[in-house]
């Protein structure tokens, strides 16, 4: 019995992991794009991006999942997206907005002198950003990013709201059959995964300790 439940939960958790990895894969770079938008010197663009970030950060992620899944059908009569895709889109947009603010904070914390040093040495804007600024930003944002990424692990459970069969959904099917313990057991999966991430982030922090900003 335990083994059977464990396998079922594992399969559910695999879906959670898939959502987690794909969200990061898209949201990390997209966040950088959003961050540049919110720092743009072109005021209308900046206003649009900042308003968008406000809306996304200002509404529940659960609501966003529901809107992305049911919205197209309700408002335009389109065919609904595949469930996992809908969740993924909502997650990517949501997390990109949160990441963008962390990036922005990191980028703006780098002294102007670093850019100017690059400029007087004849570097291009891209060279300055990628060769000089980026690693300093990364070093500064590892702690807030690790927070956000750990939150994402647990947010994957929101996918359940549109019946994506992730680990909590699986546990609930047992609950309906009168078996309670699998629900509590899901915590073990989350804890183990977050444990691994914690070690990983600690490792990255240590790796970046060779210099100081």
């Amino acid at each position, binding site marked *: 019995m335990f083994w059977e439940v464990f396998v079922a939960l594992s399969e559910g958790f695999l879906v959670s992991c898939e959502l987690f990895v794909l969200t990061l894969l898209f949201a990390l770079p997209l966040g950088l794009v959003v961050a540049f938008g919110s720092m743009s010197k072109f005021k209308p663009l900046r206003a649009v991006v900042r308003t968008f970030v406000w809306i996304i950060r200002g509404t529940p992620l659960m609501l966003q999942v529901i809107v992305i899944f049911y919205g197209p059908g309700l408002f335009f009569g389109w065919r609904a997206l595949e469930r996992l895709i809908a969740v993924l889109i909502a997650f990517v947009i949501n997390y990109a907005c949160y990441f963008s603010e962390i990036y922005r904070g990191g980028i703006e914390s780098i002294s102007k*002198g*670093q850019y100017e*040093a690059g*400029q*007087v040495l*004849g570097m*291009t*804007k891209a060279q300055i950003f990628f060769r000089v600024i980026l690693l300093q930003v990364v070093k500064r944002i590892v702690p807030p990013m690790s927070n956000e990424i750990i939150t994402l692990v647990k947010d994957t459970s929101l996918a359940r709201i549109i019946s994506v069969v992730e680990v909590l959904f699986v546990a609930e099917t047992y609950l309906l059959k009168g078996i309670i313990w699998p629900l509590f057991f899901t915590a073990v999966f989350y804890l183990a995964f977050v444990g691994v991430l914690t070690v990983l982030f600690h490792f990255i922090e240590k790796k970046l300790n060779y210099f100081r*900003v």
Partner: protein
Amino acid sequence: MAFLEVKNYRKKFGDNEVLKGVSFSLEKGEVLAVIGSSGGGKTTLLRCLNFLETPDEGTLVLGGETLFDASEKAERAESAIRQKRLHFGLVFQQFNLFPQYTVFKNITLAGMLLAKAEYRQKKRDFAAVLAAAPKEERKKLKAQQKEILAEIRANQKRHIEEKAESLLARVGLSEKRGAYPFELSGGQQQRVAIARALALNPDILCFDEPTSALDPELTGEVLKVIRGLKSSESTMIVVTHEMAFARSVADKVIFIADGEIAEEGTPEEVFASPKNEKTRAFLQRSLAAGGEE
């Protein structure tokens, strides 16, 4: 015509006119000291020379080539400015070393990037030559080109690294080549910054209050390095509060007050017998404050 001719540089930030028409000239190998009280426009002048700020008016001619003319707006493209910047080096008050790179890499980084761009261009040129060549010769030509390119790359690298080594020796930090900036004292960091600026062979090396961020006991080593550069005929512009240093090193001194040159001349003229009332007051103040080396 002098090596460097700056004419009528004007710069406004909003309503605040920081430079009100500054003109001066400098011969090759000369050292110019720029003195004056804080907020007088010294740093802005230096930033304008390095194209970190764009003057509203004025022209700059270096070695007969007009590098800046405020009336020609077209010449403001990023790549054009980048080329022009390379004529000038700048050593910052706050050093601004790149913290994630070793001392050595700080000095070589920009040179390596420029070399890479040059190499890529060469590669493109070669590809064009190859495409134009008759088919039967292509194979041989390609092999030749490959050899030449490899040699260019190796030469570039060797050249840049040798230069960096010799510069490190010159600023007395050879044994620190593998250290990271945070492991160095302020004086050492500034000496690395000087080496970094020299690595690109600028025509004119500018210093923006190079010792102002240092503890008093560390200023000596930095000033000594700058003094050492004088003998090797670098042309330099030094914005400084170190009056004794300015007096002993400079060939020419300009005193800037309220965005204008209030006094200029040899160190003897400016320090021993200042004509302008403002200069006299300023020199008295800095002497009283003990602003000596």
